[in-house]
């Protein structure tokens, strides 16, 4: 039978394999997220930017923020790998299913906006 003993550190309940970040590290991570957000908002003020350029800049920054929050704040980096697999399965399934849907409706084609309504 699985048991827990008094000498198990309070910082590592329920399957956290490694020590979690300290409060100071969490603050640094949040500052990094805030910095990336400032960069994202900064692109709004680039008047000459094309949609393709903005997608190329903003999507990678969005993915990085997503991974930082999921990895550090949601503890996926430290927790049991089964949680990571379950969540990634949901994310990947959504990307594939709705990627197919958008492709089916011609979202990625050049003609998409030529036939509104």
């Amino acid at each position: 039978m699985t048991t827990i003993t008094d000498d198990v550190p309070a910082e590592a309940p329920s399957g956290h394999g490694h020590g979690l970040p300290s409060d100071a590290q969490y603050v640094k991570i949040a500052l990094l997220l805030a910095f990336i957000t400032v960069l994202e908002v900064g692109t709004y003020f680039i008047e000459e930017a094309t949609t393709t350029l903005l997608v190329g800049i903003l999507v990678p920054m969005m993915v990085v923020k997503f991974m930082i929050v999921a990895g550090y704040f949601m503890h996926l980096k430290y927790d049991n790998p089964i949680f990571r697999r379950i969540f990634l399965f949901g994310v990947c399934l959504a990307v594939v299913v709705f990627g197919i849907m958008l492709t089916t409706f011609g979202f990625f084609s050049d003609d998409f906006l030529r036939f509104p309504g």
Partner: protein
Amino acid sequence: MQAPVAADHGHTSSTGISNTKLAMWVYLGSDCLLFGSLISTYLLLRHRSVGGPTAEELFDIPFTSVSTFVLLMSSLTMVLAVSALMRHDVRLNRIWLGTTAMLGAVFIGGQVYEFTTFYREGLGYTTNIFGSAFYTLTAFHGVHVTVGIVMLMSLLGMSFRGNLGPERSETVETIGLYWHFVDIVWIIIFTVVYLIP
């Protein structure tokens, strides 16, 4: 002294994985599909309006950026609440839980203000297909944030009644997972809906 894991975490299985946490991750994985459907529908419909104001005419990016920053910082306060309880600091845990709920409420207040402004500028739910897609997506997210606030307030209530000690840090962590997920969804919405023209 040894005590069964079940006594502390209530729902830990023989595999050592917490059932409660597992259930939350399964829910969050399935919620990806809900928001995936709403975001992709918005992408398909946003430029299909034949009347009424458009996104470019309505969006106030500086204002939404502040809301985004508030929600991002609420993720920090949430993780600090979990961290405090793991260190057996109940007082600090209450402070961070209250701060997180307050930041969430500020975000919802911003969303209500935004919706009101858009409505006054002529974008109702049925004005055009962009409005329907936009309000459906952002309101669904807003409902998620509101549910999160209710859960945080419940945790705060439990704490003041003495039912949220360090032995229940996993409960706070599980609610925290939900809160961070709501933040993650907003990270995507902010980029896809507001920043990419």
